[in-house]
């Protein structure tokens, strides 16, 4: 057992060590799926807050409408307008709830005539909702008590009161006895009691609702302030982040591009010539065409990047071919050994041989587009335009040369500041190296493989 225990521990330890070090490769589209899921669930903060605010506003408006409705009395209640609530009858300054707990006071109905108590009750219930502060129940009860106290003497003659305990109010037998003791009609008393209680409850609820509404109003104002602050903070953060990003993206580049030039496939030869054979035109011997660039790159956004700079291109040209002129006369030869004539049209042929290097110095500008947003290494397609001047001037050569380059670039990040790029490219020259009236003209085009180093300056590490 001891052996097994020790063995198990060692076994577990080795497995633990190996498995905690285990790493896996996620699916290539995992990040895209994750960001899509994150973007789906995201709702702007502002929308949530405004939605909440709208709901609260509706509650507020609804409460006001509901409150105003409650303050109007219909005819059915007119008979009961002489009923006073606890706060008016009870001369103490206890709050409504406290009164409600202990007693329910029911007036004896002697006169059903309408009296002016309705006005006082209406007033007591008609609270000014425009006030920012809720009237305390004490204030309310005091106000109403004062108003009704004036009328009490008159009413007192008409009404007398029976006090029964509330616990008895729910007990029919006790209530009956109490009411009978009070020489009152049971049915009427119940009705009166229920309505009084209902009015009280509604009043308390209303007061509570008013309190809540006022707090909500204050809350809404605070919400709006917070919202504005969030907005501003978010704007500042975004601007700052963007600023850092753009600043971070300024780069210095240096590139070397070996080139191979092809010109005879797009000949622009003189119409008066026929080229019969090219010889060794593609052989560059020991010299290779190349280009050197020194420039800058800057990220415009997550996809686009601009580049510009200086360019030096050396195109080694090695042209050997045999040509003859179309208008050359035909030479007729006689074969004197034979018994007749034979004519052999022969065109005079000449050989053109030239080994020449074109050196261009110019400026370029272009842009590239990142194909896959998150893939590493970074892959881009782009184009640039170069305007160059011939360094070694010759009267037969054009001094200005424009060219267009299309490229596909792969960027490898070596460190936070250094980047290495490989970029196959195709260069097309818009005009012939030779002037129009020269013996021949040929617009070269070149293909090359640019190898570049980029150094970032500025921005956060």
């Amino acid at each position: 057992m001891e052996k097994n225990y020790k063995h198990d521990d060692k076994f577990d330890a080795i497995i633990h060590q190996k498995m905690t070090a285990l790493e896996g490769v996620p699916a290539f589209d995992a990040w895209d799926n994750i960001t899509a899921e994150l973007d789906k669930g995201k709702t702007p903060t502002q929308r949530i807050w405004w939605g909440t605010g709208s709901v609260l506003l509706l509650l507020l408006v609804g409460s006001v409408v509901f409150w105003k409705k409650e303050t109007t009395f219909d005819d059915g209640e007119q008979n009961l307008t002489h009923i006073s609530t606890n706060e008016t009858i009870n001369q103490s300054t206890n709050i409504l709830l406290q009164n409600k707990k202990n007693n329910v006071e029911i007036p004896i109905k002697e006169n059903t005539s309408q009296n002016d108590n309705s006005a006082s009750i209406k007033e007591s219930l008609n609270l000014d909702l425009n006030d920012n502060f809720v009237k305390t129940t004490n204030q309310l009860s005091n106000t109403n008590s004062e108003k009704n106290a004036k009328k009490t003497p008159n009413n007192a003659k008409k009404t007398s009161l029976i006090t029964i305990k509330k616990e008895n109010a729910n007990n029919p037998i006790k209530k009956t006895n109490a009411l009978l003791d009070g020489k009152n009609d049971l049915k009427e008393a119940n009705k009166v009691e229920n309505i009084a209680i209902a009015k009280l409850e509604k009043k308390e609820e209303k007061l509570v609702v008013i309190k809540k509404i006022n707090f909500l109003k204050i809350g809404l104002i605070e919400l709006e302030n917070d919202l504005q602050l969030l907005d501003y903070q978010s704007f500042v953060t975004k601007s700052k982040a963007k600023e850092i990003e753009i600043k971070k993206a300024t780069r210095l580049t240096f590139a070397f591009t070996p080139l191979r030039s092809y010109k005879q496939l797009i000949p622009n030869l003189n119409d008066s010539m026929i080229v019969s054979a090219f010889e060794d035109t593609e052989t560059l011997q020991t010299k290779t065409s190349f280009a050197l660039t020194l420039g800058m790159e800057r990220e415009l956004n997550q996809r686009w990047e601009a580049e510009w700079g200086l360019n030096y291109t050396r195109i080694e040209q090695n042209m050997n071919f045999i040509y003859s002129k179309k208008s050359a006369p035909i030479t007729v030869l006689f074969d004197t050994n034979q018994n007749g004539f034979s004519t052999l049209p022969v065109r005079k042929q000449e050989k053109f041989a030239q080994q020449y290097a074109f050196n261009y110095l110019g400026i370029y500008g272009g842009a590239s587009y990142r194909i896959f947003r998150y893939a590493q290494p970074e892959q881009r397609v782009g184009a640039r335009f170069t305007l160059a001047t011939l360094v070694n001037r010759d009267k037969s050569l054009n001094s200005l040369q424009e060219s267009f380059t299309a490229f596909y670039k792969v960027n490898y990040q070596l460190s936070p500041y250094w980047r290495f790029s490989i970029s196959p490219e195709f260069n097309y020259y818009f005009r012939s190296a030779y002037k129009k009236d020269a013996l021949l003209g040929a617009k070269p085009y070149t293909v090359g493989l640019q190898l570049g180093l980029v150094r970032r300056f500025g921005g956060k590490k």
Partner: protein
Amino acid sequence: MLSFFSNKILTNATQYMTEADIIEGCKKGNRKAQEALYAQHSAKVMGICLRYAKRREEAEDVFQEAFVKIFKNLHKLKTNQALSSWIRRLTVNLAIDNYRKNKKHYGHLTTEFCQESGDTDMTILQSISNKELLEIINKLPQGYRMVFNLYVIEGYNHREIAEKMGISEGTSKSQLSRARKMLQQILKGLKISLIN
């Protein structure tokens, strides 16, 4: 060469930001910070998912779900808590939930595997690679594998495992013991085949 440069790039991308920057950025929903966090932890999280899931596709689903949950719940990370252990715990819990959800689809153990086997030669265990060991562990029935992972690798005790998986402590202990025996048997078989 490409993978070398890819790893370099992923590593270098995170060197721009400290862990605190990444966490703060992720809380604000900054995409670059999220990318950096993903770059830092995706390999380890995927490793955890592969350990717990029955199939590669299942592991990938749990992986994606884990990262979505990580980004949405990063505000719950306490200041004294290490990010990597929080992520690991979240991923393990998600894997357990996934197991509980799909439990009915997993097959049952065949008993012939659970025979007594002698002690495993530790050298064979040390000589196999992490990936090979993962494949061996993945041969275990799903329930055994879950208990084994939670006990041996995550370090939970049987009471905690029983709570998480909705089983009894006794079941957890017996499953762990059987899982060990099965693994030892597989490793023994592997040793024999290597010798031959």
